[in-house]
């Protein structure tokens, strides 16, 4: 009988302790002095990894080193970054607190990462006032009077049923889409398709010149970013754009 009372008493004490809330201060006090920084701090919320799908939520498969430029003019260098093209958010891995953090979009002006090929990818936060309205990260492909941007957007698409790694039957997959935009001071952001017709439509007065330039330089495919950049470089060479 006394044993039972003892067990109930211990269990009661345990539960009482469990019920009492802990403060986050305990976590703060574990921080090293290296957590100090005179610069303003990176703010964001925890990024939770979602269930596995066919495809990836991220545009970047791995953590890449990059710099983040904040709206208040401050720069944070050499961070581990990944672009979550599904949510259109920049994810950062904070090594000190071992957490993946979605950096507040309102605080970011632009960021860049060095990809696995060693190329620097520059992303700018753009307010797009057409559907869907909002702030997006556009990658700058070509900078000039006519600037070329690409918006990476991962969408969920229906597909044939398949079983994922956990043996769960699924019927959707994640697909990366690329939407190209040309920006000029006077016209703003114009959506263009990755084909020759779009270029001709963009510069209606110089159709013949563009056709000739593409023909002479054997540019017939506009399928990816390198081809689009090449096409813009060619237009600059020909004096069609500045």
């Amino acid at each position, binding site marked *: 009988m006394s044993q039972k009372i003892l067990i109930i008493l211990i269990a009661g004490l345990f539960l009482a302790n469990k019920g*009492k*809330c802990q403060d986050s201060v305990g976590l703060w*006090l574990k921080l*090293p002095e290296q*957590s100090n920084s005179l610069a*303003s701090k990176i703010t964001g919320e*925890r990024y939770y990894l979602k269930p596995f799908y066919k495809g990836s939520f991220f545009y970047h498969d791995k953590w890449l080193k990059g710099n983040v430029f904040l*709206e208040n003019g401050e720069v944070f260098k050499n961070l581990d970054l990944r672009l979550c093209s599904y949510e259109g958010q920049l994810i950062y891995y904070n090594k000190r607190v071992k957490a993946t953090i979605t950096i*507040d979009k309102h605080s970011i002006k632009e960021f860049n990462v060095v990809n696995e090929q060693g190329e620097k990818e520059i992303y700018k936060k753009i307010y797009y006032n057409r559907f869907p309205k909002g702030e997006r990260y556009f990658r700058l492909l070509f900078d000039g009077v006519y600037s070329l941007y690409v918006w990476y957007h991962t969408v969920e698409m229906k597909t044939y049923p398949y079983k994922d790694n956990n043996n769960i039957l699924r019927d959707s997959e994640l697909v990366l889409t690329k939407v190209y935009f040309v920006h000029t001071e006077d016209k703003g952001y114009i959506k263009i398709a990755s084909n020759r017709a779009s270029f001709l439509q963009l510069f209606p007065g110089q159709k013949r010149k563009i056709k000739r330039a593409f023909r002479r330089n054997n540019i017939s495919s506009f399928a990816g970013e390198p081809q689009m950049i090449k096409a813009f470089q060619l237009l600059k060479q020909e004096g069609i754009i500045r």
Partner: protein
Amino acid sequence: MIKKQFNILSLLFLFIFVANLKSECKEMVYIFPDRNSCVSGDTIWFDVMVFDSEGKVRSNMVHVCLSSKESSVTHSTVKCHNNWAHGYLIVPDSLSTGNYIISAFTNRQKHTPQSKVIQKDVLVYNRFDQQISEISMPTYNGSQTVNYQKVGMGISTSAGSLKTRGMAELKVEIPSSLQGNLKALVVNVGMADPLAETLPFYSTSAQALIKKDTGVVIENDAILIRGNVYNKATLEKASNVVVLLSISGTLPYFDYCIADSNGAFSFYLKNVIGVANLYIQVVSGSYEEYIVELQENVLVPEKSKKTGLRILANDQVAYINNLIDAAYYNRLFYQTMQSPEDTFSMDIGFRYPFYGEPTKIVYPELFIDLSDFTEIARELLFGVQYRIKQDHAIRVSNQVQNMLFDMEPLKLINGIPVFDGSKFSKLGTNQIERVELVLNERYFGDLVFKGVLAVYTKDKSNSWINMVPNMFNLRYECVQVNQKGQGPKPKAVGKNIPDFRQVLYHKTYFENDKSLEINFQASDIKGDVIIEVIGIGKENELYVDSKKITVQ
């Protein structure tokens, strides 16, 4: 063996040389006050120019400090635009008669042991002193003063002497050798103090401003706040405690610093103007009480400077008596300048507060009257659990995982962190303006917040903090409000109102003209007026000329 020792020694010398080079700072500040002497309670207006003899100026915040031989008296911080700033120092009313020093320096200078600071001596006469017959004056040797060139600036006036309140035309003809070679020209016209004329143009402080290099921080559009935390019981430096800084406001400011082994902490406030009400909290794992001390941006006086007692001549005594009388009448007819205490602004640069975009904003007064926070939490704050029985425990839900967080959220009242949930208990609909909720795990630098509950009260006095242990409300003078266009007291408008201006004209010209034509009006004070023209060359060299006229 000897060769090896020689090599080691050479390397050592090379290392010392390189280390010295690294810490050397050539950034300096010229200060141009509008007067060399004043009466206690007066306002000294000044212009400052920051320059770097070896490179680009990197700081744009200048600290100006008035100090006696023993301690600092008053100070201000001004922000430079194109390396120039304009500001003022209010000389305390109770300051005793004596020789004081105005020093102007940047934080970069202050924290570089080898740097020199340019100083200007001023004489302050206490306005209650009846008969000043002697005064302690500094004595300088050649190495303690700054060199300048005496160059004829072609100063001419429309008349050699003036009547009281008479108008004068002043012309400055810049010599051809200096035309196009001047950065700026400072023109100062004021009553000539025979005693102040014996002071050097500039002196320098070669003293190491700090005992050791604690890391140079360049203040650019920002000011650095440094301080120390001590254990209240033992007075030992408290290390590894978290120091939180909050500034209450519509968009509250928040920052944290983990105190180092010396209990030191620092914060870097950007785009701040005016006098800030800082709320500093020390957070530790124990129940111990702490003391916080902020370091002021002042210069430690150089005690090695020699002074000697000077017996004053009759003309010097007469001038001082006149000046004190004039100050008395000025106080009767004009308002004395007060520092604008309520002015404070801070551009945080973001749309949302440091805890991010709120998930929900609730305005309790839009609903029925609820007497306390328990009812508000239960009826209006969905996702918030407030339990009085468990030490006023608060928990908020994690909307991503659809469950309550296992730890307490960051609780704020008017943007100031609160660690005692009971502070909320008496807040009802009548007291609360709005409640902002963040139902996510938030990160601020390396700090984690398991949700955020931010309550903004209608009463912004924050009187509740008085009872909070380890919470300190400190008034901190940040950057002086831009006083462009402001200057010495204006001229009297009527005949019946006395005009006892000591400074008749003070302006800095940046246009590199061949000549300047200026009009100024004499005041009611009789005596010598000194016209001083200071040219600052492109290599930061100084050219000085002066002329005296009499007011009869």
